[in-house]
């Protein structure tokens, strides 16, 4: 899931809680569809990190597929 330019999960720290993010199950939902996926999240506040590669890659493809008529 990561690319050479992406930080590893252990590098990510929640700016609000100042604790390292951990991989965890997240329900990503959009336009009524729910996708259980594993993403880095803050164990304290639940804040989720989405990498740029994912946001502009598969996640965008899924969003556009849902938005299309």
């Amino acid at each position: 899931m990561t690319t050479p330019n992406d930080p590893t999960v252990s590098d990510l720290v929640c700016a609000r809680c100042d604790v390292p993010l951990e991989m965890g199950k997240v329900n990503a939902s959009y336009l009524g569809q729910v996708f259980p996926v594993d993403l880095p999240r803050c164990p304290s506040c639940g804040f989720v990190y989405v990498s740029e590669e994912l946001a502009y890659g598969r996640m965008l493809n899924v969003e556009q597929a849902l938005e299309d008529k």
Partner: protein
Amino acid sequence: MDMPDSRLFLGETQSVCPECLKTIPARRFAEGDTVFLEKVCPDHGRFSAPVWRGLSSYLLWAEARRAEARPLLTATEVKDGCPHDCGLCPGHRQQSCCVLLEVTSRCDIACPVCFANAGRHGRDASLEEISGWLDTLAAAGGPVHIQLSGGEPTTRDDLADIVRLVRAKGFGFVQVNTNGLRIARDPNYLQGLVEAGLDCIFLQFDGVDDGVYRALRGVPLMKMKARAIANCREAGVGVVLVPTLVPGVNSRQIGAIVDFAIDNMPAVRAVHFQPVSYFGRVPHEPTDEMRITLPEVMEALVDYSKGSIGIPDFNPGSAENPFCSFSGRFFVAADRTLSADGEAPASCCGVPAGAGEDTAVAPAHQESKCCGGHTATEGSCCDANTHERKGECCGGEEQRKSGGETCCKESVEHENEPRHASCCGSAKASADVARAQRYVSGQWTRPSPSAGPSDGLEAFDAFLARRERRALGLSGMAFQDAWTLDIERLRQCHIHVVSPDNRVIPFCAFNLTDRNGRSLYRPSGG
């Protein structure tokens, strides 16, 4: 409006006289379950034609949002009024979505029904001419889809060079509209097209037996159609089956055509039904019984599904006038049952400016904003008051719903405005057209081989794979002829043709002929 008691008045518009093509007032009305377009020419009398058989779906379609946008570039002035000033003119109300290039007027069969009036002898456009057309489209500013058409484009040995030229000029999607004979006989020719960048074969496919082809095309073609599809499967290019539906000839084969499509998935990506229109080579004035309308096609599809899908599972045209089309994407189960994909239609946000951005997900590297993002919690990120199209000229949901007032009180107010101008400032690319293009390219293109497994993101991959491999597009488009032409619809047309003199002309205007075969725009005179 004075109407007999048995008629339900539905609206006024304009049309043309089928005899002289003069623009005349027209009105829509329902009688029983059928919607008619009626008009009276002061010189040639009254004309009436059924345009929609199914009042309940008509009222449903009438509620659809009217997507409108100013052309980014116009080439003609408003002088004689629609449909006599096409080029596009400043009165047009939608940008180009798919543009047809008629690369030849030659054809290798002589169909009794042919809107292009093609024959065995004709002329090929030169590569220089085609290059000029593409430059015109590029200058008009839109990343349009290109359909190479004719005549029969595969009569040209250099068609791959044309596909390559289209690609080289930056157009993102190119399809070839063909009867399939050449690609059935010559898989190497097809492979050359694919290697040049072809995305899709738009295959004339009227039915599943030779009786249909003998009636409509004059020759038995079924084996050749099957071979063409097999070659497309081998070459890895998507196929859209395109039946021209003619009552009494193949209108009872709608289900059989879908069956054939399912048998040939995923190479066959969609079936795009086109009820017959009467322009070009038409021997007699059409009677009501010679027409089939879009809701009848939808009903036949619902019947085929044995009720597993319904009319509400189809969507009205979202970038063109709603009454010009229907479309639906359906999943095909292992037992061949069709089901609506269960995914919400485009409602909020249209085309996202970015992705994965959301207040709930909040990627660390990007600014949060509404629209285009997933949420990690329940609900949508999008608030009903936040629409990216807000403020768009005549196109925003807030500005025009069915019959509602737009930012422009009367469309005619635009007609003498300077080119490139919009009532609300500069014209901009239509989000509706972009979305329609993305839908077409996404569904009609053969999927690439699946990517490998991705840890933790299998839910995304499974969703995308299901759409690519098990989804079948079922759609229909109603072209308008001199009897059915509704100028309100024509002004929103987004399927255009580049004429030999570099004008961009809405498809139905380009092919419009009077009852004697005289054409407004087609060089051969129809």
